């Protein structure tokens, strides 16, 4: 009885978020991306089951859940990074601005949906060349110097690096490297920025800086973040999806999910009873 009621419930939440008449989100909330009936597997192992959710425009959407729940995999479907694994199989529909992402050219899609990874992964190039990489490969014709400066400013790194843009990116600290990676992703002006546990390799001070940044970046782009840190999700996100064994258990506005979770499993997780 309970088992059959659950998926229906999570669909209801999605409808609440997507329809203008939503009770929680007063006005119309435009969706940048919508995921419907998504099933995903690596080889014979199914990772995601019937995922339905939306990524609201100019908001931060957090995916939380215990290790192995499929939250990173879900994030990786949004820019089709899963395709690097040849045995992966995806069913369902993911829309970006109403267009099916599976029908698009994958390189064009990834220019629109940027990504920041778990561990800082700057290229073995100078700071400048790292940020300029995206615009360069995309044949950007304008002033690279301006783009680099703008992106570094958005990533709150400009003041720290402006005097040595031509030094190796590896001379930066871990936190600076991660902000450089954010600047690199911003340089192609993505509509959506995916962040896969961006602070998991960083110290608390760098983490705080990046969290601050995420809140500011909302004005610029739409953010979807995977995190294993519930406090982080509570601090930075507007919406939170709680995943367990490949299913969305609950998807609500963040204050709602953390204060009055509808599902006992969500409550158990956020109060630290497992995970």
């Amino acid at each position, binding site marked *: 009885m309970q088992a059959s009621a659950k998926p229906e419930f999570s669909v209801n939440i999605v409808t609440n978020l997507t329809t203008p008449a939503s009770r929680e989100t007063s006005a119309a909330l435009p969706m940048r991306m919508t995921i419907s009936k998504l099933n995903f597997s690596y080889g014979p192992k199914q990772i995601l089951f019937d995922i339905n959710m939306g990524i609201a425009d100019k908001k931060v959407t957090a995916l939380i859940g215990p290790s192995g729940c499929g939250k990173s995999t879900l994030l990786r479907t949004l*820019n089709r*990074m899963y395709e*690097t694994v040849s045995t992966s199989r995806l069913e369902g529909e993911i829309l970006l601005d109403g267009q099916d992402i599976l029908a698009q050219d994958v*390189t*064009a*899609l*990834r*220019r629109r949906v*940027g*990504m920041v*990874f778990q*561990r800082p*992964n*700057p*290229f*073995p*190039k*100078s700071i400048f060349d790292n940020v300029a*990489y*995206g615009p*360069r*490969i*995309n044949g950007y014709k304008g002033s690279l110097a301006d783009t680099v400066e703008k992106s570094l400013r958005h990533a709150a790194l400009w003041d720290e690096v402006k005097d040595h843009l031509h030094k*190796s*990116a*590896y001379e930066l600290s871990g936190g600076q490297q991660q902000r450089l*990676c954010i600047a*690199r*992703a911003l340089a*192609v002006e993505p509509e959506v920025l995916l962040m896969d546990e961006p602070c998991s390799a960083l110290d608390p001070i760098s983490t705080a800086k990046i969290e601050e940044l995420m809140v500011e970046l909302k004005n610029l782009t739409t953010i979807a973040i995977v995190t294993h840190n519930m406090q982080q999700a509570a601090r930075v996100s507007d919406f939170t999806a709680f995943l367990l064994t490949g299913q969305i258990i609950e998807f609500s506005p963040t204050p709602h999910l953390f204060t009055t979770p509808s599902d006992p499993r969500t409550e158990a997780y956020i109060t630290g009873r497992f995970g």
Partner: protein
Amino acid sequence: MSNGRLRWRKFVSNFMLAMTGVCAFVSVLVLFFILGYLLFNGGTSINWDFFTKLPKPVGEAGGGMANAIVGSGKILLLASLMGVPIGFLGGIYLAEFSGKGMASVVRYAADLLNGVPSIVIGIFAYSLVVLPFKHFSALAGAFALGMMMIPITLRSTEEFLKSVPRMLREAAMALGASKWKTIVTVIVPAAYRGIMTAILLALARVAGETAPLLFTAFGNRFESHGWSQPTATLPVMIYTYAVSPYDDWHRQAWAAGLVLLGLVLIINILARTILSRGIAVPRS
């Protein structure tokens, strides 16, 4: 434990320590012995003439090996032009595009090719290039050496490309780079220094090859112009001079050996310098 047993153990330990030390010392000693012997025997014949003059006729003292130095240079250049691109691009295919089955076949074939005795490569080049043209030539010599460079370049390119961390590939692809663009703009630049080093070491390795040149480039007492004439090279010159009955020629053979070893050392040092410069990818 008895005292005697402990003393025996200590003895074995010290003995083995000493043995490993002696063996390490001997291996270094061999190099310095060769170097010293070359210097002692050939040092006196190394002068400006050696690098600038042609060999003198039999019986006349003096002369040099300018033709062999130029010839070796020409053949090594052409060999690199033939072998390096094939090995390099093949290595990219192996590391980035091929499936598991295909890759293991190519890899195994490359390892076998690497193990083919150089004299066999020489006969092959002889029958494929020398016989049809009815001419010993620099081209044939370069063909033989180029073939020897392919497997070394291929395997090391593959290894260095594979050692580039996966997260760099993902970073480039997440920015909208196609597979080919990722390889050209990120993977190869990240592995570039390793690959360059390997290519230089491959060059140093074939620079001293004699057997495949004996019946391909053959040799020449004079300057050879173009690519289709018999061409003198340092290793073959050493061979010819060393088996001759003339003392002056023996000295010149030693000098040529010294020059060849110097060349290989320079290439090695160059390779190491390249390896230690620029931005390295941290190993994780």
